[in-house]
């Protein structure tokens, strides 16, 4: 089979054929900046399809650094870097904890950059930029407020004193455990250490 079939941007199912047009799945939503996702979904209805990036146009690098990998280290960064061979444009994404998601975002960023280069003022980013500039400001403000509350520079009014226990929650199981239908043994599998 030609390399086309192997590529991320050339998947078998139509919905996932081009990474850039596929809407994000809900599973991954919480990890994306909200404003970004919402806007791009809305706008994609009015806009022409994104530029498809072929796998043989790019070199993808997972930036694993030197030294051993595999079982020997447990990395938390899954940065993805794309180099577009014809233009030499390089984009990098380490936004999320999911390498797959970073790959998708990086491809979209690259697509935007290429389009900017090719279409200038007509490009999606230019149009989007104009439309978004108003919305962006308020979204930004909101996010900042939230972040500040967490940072504690402005202690949130609802916050109480931290009670004892909750080890389970810190291990991240509490939330999932709740969604699992009650009484399942599997839910306990995740709990407690």
């Amino acid at each position, binding site marked *: 089979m030609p390399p086309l*079939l192997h590529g991320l941007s050339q998947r078998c199912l139509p919905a996932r054929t081009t990474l850039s047009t596929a809407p994000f799945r809900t599973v991954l939503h919480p990890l994306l900046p909200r404003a970004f996702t919402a806007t791009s979904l809305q706008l994609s209805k009015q806009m022409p399809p994104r530029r498809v990036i072929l796998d043989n146009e790019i070199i993808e690098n997972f930036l694993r650094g030197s030294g051993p990998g595999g*079982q020997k280290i447990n990395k938390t960064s899954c940065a993805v870097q794309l180099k577009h061979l014809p233009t030499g444009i390089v984009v990098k994404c380490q936004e999320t904890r999911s390498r797959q998601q970073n790959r998708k975002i990086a491809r979209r960023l690259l697509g935007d950059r290429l389009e900017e280069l090719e279409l200038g003022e007509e490009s999606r980013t230019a149009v989007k930029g104009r439309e978004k500039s108003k919305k962006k400001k308020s979204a930004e403000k909101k996010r900042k407020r939230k972040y500040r509350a967490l940072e504690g520079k402005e202690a949130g009014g609802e916050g109480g004193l931290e009670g004892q226990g909750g080890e389970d929650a810190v291990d991240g199981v509490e939330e999932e455990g*709740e969604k699992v239908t009650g009484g399942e043994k*599997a839910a306990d599998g995740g709990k407690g250490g």
Partner: protein
Amino acid sequence: MPRLATSLLREAYAIHPCLPLLLRPCRDLQAARNELRWLCEHAGKVARLRRAKGRDADPKQLLKRLVQERAAGKPLQYLLGTEFFGDLEIRCQPGVLIPRQETAASVMHLTRLLRAALDLPPELRVLDLCTGTGCIPLLIADELTRCRQDVQLRLLGVDVSDKALRLAQYNLHQTQRKGRLSDTAKVAFIHADLLMEPFDVQPAQTLCLKKAMNYSRVPPFWDVFVSNPPYISPAAYWKTTTRSVRGFEPKLALVPPLPADPATDTEHGDIFYPHLLAMARDVEAKIVLLEVADLAQAGRVAEMAQNMAIFDGIEIWRDQPDQPAEERGAQPSRFPIIGQGNGRSVLCWRARGGSWLGKGPSPVSPLDDARRLWESHRVSSSFFDFKFNSRL
């Protein structure tokens, strides 16, 4: 480890008072900022959930504790409770190895090749030994069923750790619950000790693979055989693993147990592979994918596979097998080396495996293939295991 520059610490502190602590495990500012963002989100989420339950929760305090634990070296994945593996979010828990991105890359390259296969059987059976969180069978199911609804998948994960099996089962449930497991895929997990021989005394709770498979009434033959076994030698464990791995991840998952016969350090690290290859042969696997630590171990494992004389082809994959081969001068290697990065896995195929992988049909007739399998059974010691078990 070199000390962090004061200027860097000061710069970090100016951004957020927690950042200097996170620089300890992360070493660079961008990575520390990423982790802080994820920990903040997590603290916020946990606090919301606790409040919803009517419990008190202060995200600030939660965040502080998370950051302190992280600074002490606890892996971020244990703190957040999950790691991404392909498109799946896999639950992680202390006591069970955190899935690695390199493993996902190998597995996804394999599934990418299989997706294009024209002659897959109506039921494709995939065996994953040393399954840990269960991440590999779940990812294979996710990647394959997406485009190959024409193929029924049967996947079996095996591990010796009860904790791992419970977590794998949990991950299976979660994947199902999220609607991410197709009806065309059946996943199960069983308990077995892969280093135990059928002749060994079988303690009450532990069986060798063959007996465990008989006991669970799973089929004896499997098409695709995958394993990421413990592969770090004792010396390499102390020299090359990071502190966070040594301090927080289970040694059982990383270093093979002390061999009965005297062995060099290198042989100690390789212990699982002859066992795995013999099991791959016994289940008549057509494709075998084994993860390794580096190119040197890859070479040794490929050699072992070659010596069994049952495979049509053997190649070595680096961390990114889908990228064009690295040009590092002429490597004198008996086996093709694919992709870029560290040596990461060994791929072997026989019979119809070659055509499934797009490597072309087997040069060996089915009769000769059966003969070489039989021959290999006969010369290896597990010939006797085979005879014994077939009587059961």
